[in-house]
């Protein structure tokens, strides 16, 4: 293990060197568009308002907030004038920012100052920790000096937001035809907005719709860079950064926090011209993508197993250990070689053992992993998928992950990401997804999207001391004081679906903003805290959300098992070290609908699957898969790959079993800890699951009758991926201490017995003469001269 880490570190160092040399070049690039004025801000806002989308409901709701923000900003500006910025000495990169965007840092400094008063001790602690990161941070920030012109952005941002959101939903569902889906999406979205508006008039006075954060998102960059500053050079590609945190209280009393950081860059990595100017997009990753012609890259590191039965579905599922899947561009000729190099480089970037990915654990799934971005690629020879179920995720993986963020761990939501708390959790998963997305509705050009996610679940009993009361501070031992200055949108969502009237728990500080979204087939309601607005932080200048459950007499509620529509289980059956059987159970808990799932399992070669023993049965009957893709293993070369398309009958358990034989390895092939067992990576179940919303037949929702007769097509099903448990299988293991004992014994016998005997037999014994005296020696010298024999 130590050796593996060392190797990882070595690669990491190399990559750092590469990055730093690249950054040096960047220092010399001309700085453009740094002038700005407060007047510009006002004009922009004034111009922006009439251009707002033609939805009157939204408009009125949004207006007061914008005014408030404007006030904030002006007040912030005044304060900076009167007050010397002593923080600048301390935070070097802040100054740099200050030069660029005079309007924004004022607000920021104000917060900064206040934060320092509050948490000076903390700050010092973090600074120590982050000093090593500083150099790297600076490099990144120099790239920001080339400011971007934002006129286009103002116009297209709104559309872009819409399309990208559509993208998120649609791209997941690759199995269905895309055109159909998109139509339904549009319909559904319309329907949703009307439904929401209806409800709005009833309950939520100050409800902001999801679409509306487009406006909020547009404001901060406007303030920063005025459109008045005309670009001296052809406009460089635009980039945009958004951050958000979703907090979901779970049924079991645990709490789930999901961070998402999204950087979209309109650069064309696939094009001919080299991309060399990096601003928000991490250069280390961008270079890798360019060099290895990566179309899509998905990498996740997970410590722990997502407990579907207790927690429901995660926003982004991932298997325990490390998972990496990459779609290469079709220009790549030697895919395997590129894949090998790529894994080694990524291993350096993320400080992980990804370099252990080789042909024995790489597969090419034929159906399970379709590209999530745009592009209709069907040739799965450009896809590589590998998992390392044994990978242990810890701080050394988190730090490089955080460095990919534009704000690092200095500002915004990422200040919460402190490893001492993140790794004191029940589940920890961090991921990086890179994919091409549409730039505009017509999808004429593509942008690169980098999505960094981090999911963490805090346990009620260990982290929460058994008390059902959660706050940001309790979870992360930090509070939020500001948004990332580079982010166009920075929000915290709290899932309050189960708490519409506040009868379950109390959320403080209360927020007037609510939003609805259909997540994983279920309509959820969220309270929204917009960090780009000063009002979110309240008078204490820091945001520390507190969720306190009402029934204080019964703090610990017994965890009730959920019945998720789709979940699975996998185990090894049998005993003894010769044979065994892998059982995969897939549960469909839907009361009346059958749905298809794709099951993928990659099994290492040392479990020799007997594919003729493959049985699939549901409800006691044989269930014939409609599609089977099986690639047999080759010893020491490639694993088994089994993909099946199964139809799950409603309310059933489908059992897939296959027998295997445990191979006897060569003695050098055993790991250093062979008696620990050998891992078999998680199976992947990809499914289109009928959504809960569509399932709701008894119409408890107050929907008009005319809308609820036909089974609604809207949100009829959603894409979901479920990972099973990895398996730990013991192989027949020789007693490695026995050869050692034998070697020791033999060596001893040889050394003591044979050695001394041989010594005795071959040695010639001579009588040792006492050394001659001085007189004799002199006499001998004389005799030698004379040529007379010595004495």
């Amino acid at each position: 293990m130590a050796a593996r880490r060392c190797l990882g570190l070595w690669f990491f160092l190399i990559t750092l060197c590469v990055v730093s040399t690249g950054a040096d070049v960047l220092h010399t690039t001309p700085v453009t568009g740094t002038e700005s004025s407060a007047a510009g801000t006002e004009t922009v806002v004034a111009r922006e308002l009439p251009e707002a989308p033609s939805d009157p409901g939204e408009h009125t709701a949004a207006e007061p907030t914008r005014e408030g923000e404007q006030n904030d900003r002006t007040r912030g500006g005044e304060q900076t004038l009167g007050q010397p910025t002593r923080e600048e000495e301390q935070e070097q990169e802040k100054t740099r920012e200050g030069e660029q965007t005079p309007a924004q840092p004022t607000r920021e400094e104000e917060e900064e100052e206040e934060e320092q008063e509050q948490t000076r001790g903390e700050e010092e602690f973090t600074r120590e920790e982050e000093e090593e990161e500083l150099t790297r941070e600076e490099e990144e920030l120099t790239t920001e000096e080339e400011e971007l012109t934002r006129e286009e952005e103002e116009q297209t941002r709104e559309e872009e937001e819409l399309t990208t959101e559509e993208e998120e939903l649609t791209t997941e569902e690759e199995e269905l035809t895309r055109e159909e889906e998109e139509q339904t999406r549009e319909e559904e979205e319309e329907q949703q907005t009307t439904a929401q508006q209806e409800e709005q008039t009833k309950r939520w006075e100050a409800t902001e719709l999801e679409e509306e954060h487009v406006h909020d998102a547009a404001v901060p960059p406007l303030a920063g860079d005025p459109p008045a500053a005309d670009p001296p050079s052809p406009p460089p590609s635009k980039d945009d950064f958004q951050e958000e945190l979703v907090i979901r209280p779970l049924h079991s009393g645990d709490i789930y926090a999901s961070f998402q950081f999204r950087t979209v860059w309109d650069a064309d990595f696939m094009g001919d011209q080299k991309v060399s100017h990096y601003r928000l997009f991490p250069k280390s990753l961008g270079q890798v993508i360019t060099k290895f012609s990566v179309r899509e890259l998905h990498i996740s590191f997970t410590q722990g197993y997502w407990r579907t039965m207790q927690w429901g579905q995660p926003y982004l599922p991932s298997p325990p250990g490390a998972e990496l899947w990459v779609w290469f561009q079709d220009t790549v000729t030697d895919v395997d070689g590129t894949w090998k190099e790529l894994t080694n480089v990524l291993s350096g970037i993320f400080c992980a053992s990804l370099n252990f990915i080789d042909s024995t654990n790489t597969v090419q799934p034929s159906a399970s992993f379709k590209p999530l971005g745009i592009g209709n690629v069907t040739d799965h020879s450009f896809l590589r998928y590998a998992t390392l179920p044994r990978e242990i995720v810890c701080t050394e993986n988190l730090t490089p992950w955080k460095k990919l963020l534009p704000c690092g761990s200095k500002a915004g939501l990422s200040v919460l990401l402190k490893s001492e708390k993140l790794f004191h959790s029940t589940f920890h998963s961090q991921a990086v997804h890179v994919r091409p997305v549409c730039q505009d509705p017509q999808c004429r050009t593509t942008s690169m999207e980098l999505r960094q996610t981090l999911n963490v679940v805090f346990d009620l009993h260990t982290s929460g001391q058994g008390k059902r009361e959660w706050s940001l501070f309790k979870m992360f031992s930090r509070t939020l004081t500001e948004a990332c200055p580079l982010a166009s949108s920075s929000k915290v969502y709290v899932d309050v679906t189960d708490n519409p009237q506040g009868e379950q728990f109390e959320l403080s500080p209360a927020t007037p903003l609510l939003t609805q979204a259909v997540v994983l087939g279920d309509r959820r309601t969220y309270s929204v805290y917009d960090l780009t607005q000063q009002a979110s932080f309240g008078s204490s200048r820091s945001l520390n959300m507190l969720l306190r459950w009402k029934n204080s007499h019964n703090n610990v509620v017994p965890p009730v098992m959920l019945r998720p529509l789709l979940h699975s289980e996998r185990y090894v059956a049998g005993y003894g070290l010769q044979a065994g059987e892998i059982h995969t159970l897939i549960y469909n808990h839907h009361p009346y609908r059958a749905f298809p799932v794709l099951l993928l399992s990659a099994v290492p070669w040392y479990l020799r699957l007997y594919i003729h023993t493959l049985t699939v049965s549901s409800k006691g009957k044989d269930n014939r898969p409609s599609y089977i893709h099986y690639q047999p293993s080759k010893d020491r070369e490639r694993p088994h790959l089994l993909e099946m398309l199964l139809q799950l009958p409603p309310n059933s358990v489908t059992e897939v079993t296959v027998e295997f034989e445990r191979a006897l390895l060569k003695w050098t092939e055993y790991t250093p800890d062979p008696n620990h067992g050998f891992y078999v990576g998680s199976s992947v179940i990809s499914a289109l699951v009928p959504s809960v919303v569509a399932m709701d037949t008894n119409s408890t929702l107050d929907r008009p009758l005319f809308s609820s007769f036909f089974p609604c097509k809207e949100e009829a099903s959603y894409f979901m991926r479920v990972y099973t448990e990895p398996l730990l299988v013991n192989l027949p293991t020789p007693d490695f201490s026995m050869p050692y004992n034998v070697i020791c014994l033999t060596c001893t016998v040889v050394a003591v017995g044979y050695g001394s005997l041989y010594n005795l037999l071959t040695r010639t014994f001579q009588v040792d003469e006492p050394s001659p005296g001085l007189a004799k020696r002199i006499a001998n010298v004389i005799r030698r001269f004379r040529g007379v024999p010595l004495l």
Partner: protein
Amino acid sequence: MGLLSDPNRRRALIGMLTRMPVDWLVRTMQARGLEVYTQRFSRKLPFPDEDKERYMVKGTNVYGILRAPRAPRTEALVLSAPCSPGNENNQAVGILLGLAQYFRSQIYWAKDIIFLVNEHDLIGMQAWLEGYHHTNTTGMDWSPLQGRGGSIQAALSLELSSDVVTSLDLVLEGLNGQLPNLDLANLFYAFCQKIGVLCTTQGKLPRNDWDTTSGYSHAVQTMMLMVLKQASSRPWGDHGLFLRYHIEAASIKGVNSFRPYKTDATTVGRLLEGMYRKLNNLLERLHQSYFFYLMPSLTRFVSIGYYMPAFGLLALILLLRALDLWVQLSSPPTRTTEDGVEVVPASPGVLSILTPLVISHLTGVALYTLPVLSQELAVEHFPVSETEAVVLTAIAIYTAGLALPHNTHRLLAGEGTEQGWKVLKLVAVLYLAVLLGCTALINFSLGFILALTLVPLAAFITPHVPKTLSAVVMVILSPGLTLLFAVFFFQELQETPVTLQEGWMLYLSVISQGILDHALYGSLLYPLAALLVYPCWLLFWNILFWK
């Protein structure tokens, strides 16, 4: 005996036995933050078990899984406590629940911990283990398990009948004489020393005076107890069934004797916590230490390297005897007839050898199958219960085998020759050598006890020794009577001597338990004795009465 012959009474008993508070356990475990599942099972015994008063067994196992934080469900540890009615074992579940609550709030777990409360002790445990590993070796009905924790690394079973204990006893002997890794015993001992609890094995305190005669005999007694327990091939605690699945397991029994110094439940909890933390920290399965050992005390063990030569010397007798016979057969003594013509005696026909072999094995098959099959018939015709019927049928068939030689010879074509018995004895001796050798490799104690009784008789039996005396000796050394002596010897060693009458009743119940162990858990002693050892002994009996 005869307790369950009345069907009404039997039904009442069954009703009384299914009393585990399943719902309460589920709720309590859930309140402690565990993932709780249940498993139902049912089993119809081949014949009523009168020791434990059960026949149709229906029950529910309740288990809660403590999921380790940030662990991928690949490894698990098990802590089990049987829940049985009465005061037999009424504190273990309490400690288990207390530990569950404490363990739940700790962050350091790397392996899932399964807290299992099993009903109907070993039957429930068997059902759970078979369900967990999805095997079915004994034909039990169980509902499939819903939650699992990956491969189980180690297990402890807890048996406590009082809230204070004076000492803790470690039970290691499992099914078919399997033993857990010695490191588990070492771990237990180390923690007992650390916490300051008296710990014993076989209920005997370790002594330090090895040099004195009394100390030595104490150690020998402890070891003999272990040998007898191991030879019995039955699980001596709920842990015994884990060993089949390569899970290191032991039972910890709380003993409350009249010693003044008592230990409370908290200390037992601390001990268990310590042991689980140690097991939790293991990177690999326990594999580095001994799996074959005998323990004269908890601190000392006799390794396989020391005891195997003793057995090897015994087996050597058989091999030398076989060699001797081989040599005699290959150079037959020529007999000079009256005419002075040397006549080489004809080698015996295949039939004369095969007939006794086949007939004695058929007797063995009868002994294996008939008792259970014919219980209905026996109950109809004789005033006995099913259990008695089974045991007595077995004894009857066993005794009837003694009449075999006379019947065998009726089938033989001619008269048995001198050469004939020698060939038969050669076959029998080699048969016994192979049989004992294999048995000793699997279950040393059983092999050794059988060797002690069978080897002398195999060495000296010929048709020419005094018939009556030899017959008496042979019957005394026969496997059946060995078992009877072992029962008395065991009671003597346990310092609970029994009268002849009690001993006989105990003997009968031991036979019935042996047959039940085979049917319920797959213990191999009964088929081994009936199908192989007894026929082998019959061959020698045949030789003695060779005509």
